[in-house]
């Protein structure tokens, strides 16, 4: 019997541990916010993961340029921000980006001249089959910092380009869950509804909500970007125009005029819409044949 006592104690302790675990495990989730962490990266890195998230977002930009990217020493002369990542050829943002990415300049000495044989010196962008190469970095960046809104919008842009609308929507919805007040994500979701699902009613809801969120942020003094207001208002105006709501379309374009850097084009559109509205109004005379 004496020989059995240690084993019995061991068994008793094991049973005790098991019983306590079943009782405490459910409560442990409520003890700290860390226990509710949705992934291992959050537990391991804490808030420090946001620094890494930025690194991976930049890595996506490096990948977009096939390795041609300014170092911290060249950055004063090179592109800032991420708008060029979603800019189409011919856009002002694209043109500006092309100019600013000429950061290398002529070599200053023979070491620099020779060194350029071993590095990427051509400014190119991903195209065709290689466009999806940007996506892993964006996904990792979003995992590390779910509050970085531009990660979702840039990824959605590229997923749309790659005809992966459902993946884009899923990713944007994940972004919206993490950033419920983001007008940028709502704008992208609206574009998906309008262009891929051909569902103008849902697109309108998204963009209207986006406009409200933008206005709320402005009222709260957060200084949201005027560019986003311009985008939201112009897209919503086009939708209203297609639906025949010309008065609302004019109203939205007038809102966009306050935000756009090129108001002349919008002014012309407003005048055009006003003429059409006048032609369609009940009191208007029929056009002469």
């Amino acid at each position, binding site marked *: 019997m004496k020989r059995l006592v240690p084993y019995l104690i061991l068994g008793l302790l094991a049973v005790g541990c098991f019983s306590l675990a079943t009782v405490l495990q459910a409560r442990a989730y409520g003890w700290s916010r860390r226990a509710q962490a949705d992934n291992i990266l959050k537990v391991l890195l804490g808030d420090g993961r946001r620094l890494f998230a930025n690194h991976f977002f930049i890595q996506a930009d490096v990948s977009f340029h096939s*390795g041609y990217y300014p170092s911290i020493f060249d950055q004063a002369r090179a592109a800032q921000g991420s708008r060029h990542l979603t800019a189409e050829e011919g856009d002002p943002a694209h043109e500006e980006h092309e100019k600013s990415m000429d950061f290398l300049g002529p070599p200053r000495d023979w070491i620099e001249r020779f060194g350029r044989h071993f590095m990427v010196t051509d400014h190119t962008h991903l195209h065709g089959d290689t466009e999806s190469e940007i*996506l892993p970095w964006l996904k990792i960046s979003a995992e590390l910092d779910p509050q970085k809104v531009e990660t979702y919008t840039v990824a959605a842009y590229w997923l749309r380009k790659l005809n992966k609308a459902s993946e884009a929507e899923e990713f944007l919805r994940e972004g919206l869950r993490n950033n419920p007040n983001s007008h940028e994500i709502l704008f992208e979701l609206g574009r998906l509804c309008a262009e891929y699902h051909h569902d103008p009613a849902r697109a309108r809801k998204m963009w209207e909500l986006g406009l409200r969120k933008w206005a709320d942020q402005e009222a709260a003094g957060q200084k949201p970007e005027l560019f986003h207001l311009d985008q939201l208002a112009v897209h919503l105006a086009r939708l209203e125009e297609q639906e025949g709501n010309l008065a609302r379309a004019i109203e939205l374009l007038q809102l966009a005029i306050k935000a756009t850097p090129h108001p002349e084009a919008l002014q012309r559109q407003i005048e055009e819409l006003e003429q059409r509205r006048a032609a369609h109004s009940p009191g208007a005379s029929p056009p002469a044949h």
Partner: protein
Amino acid sequence: MNTIFALANVVIKELCRRKDFYVLFVLTAVLTLLLGSVSFFQDIKVVRYVKEIALLLIWISALVIAIATTARQLPAEREHRTIFPLLAKPVTRGQVILGKFVGCWLACGLALVVFYLFFGVVSGSREHSWPVLNWLQAFWLQWSMLGIVVALVLLGSIVFAAPSSNATICFILVLGILLLGRHLNQVALQQPEPLRSVVYGLYFFIPHLEWYDVRDLIIYDHQLIGWGDCALASLYAGVYAALLLFGAWLLFRRKPLHL
């Protein structure tokens, strides 16, 4: 020459016996395969991130192997007192330095061959293209760079007392050159005189290890580097390695060996 190769052979056998290489290789392989197996947005064509991570791990592993293997060569011989029977063979001190250098460099080359074979298999199987010449250039340039690093660490192992301090200082130096070497001239131009001349002088003096880092050209499928440029870079590495080895020999030939 036979003496040098006999000494080199011992170093290579030591690398095979020790676990450093195996651990680093398994770590590189596991991390690469793990990340390679992740599906991002159900896209199976994505491959560059795997290449990026694999090459980064290869570079880190190769530097660790080169520096750790070289840093312990001479101190271990002195500590175990095997340097005395070695020098009594007779083997000159110059041959010891050269033998250790050749051994470490060849050992790094062997490790790199295994790493690049793994990289080639992973990259080729996912990308369905086999730019072997580009990989060969990347391998050769990295190996040339490791020649300079091995010579630098060998010199350090005569200057510094402990292998740990030598390895740490060499790591910082090599990483510093890899990260900042290319930009030192820009930094110099922003300084007032006489600091500008000092920094610019340093820029010309340091071995430009960053030239040999052609990972971006491999990852983003760029054109081959000119063979003439590769040859010149190899010559540059050879001259720097020779300079550092000569310095190591100058210090070692009069250094007392007892602890």
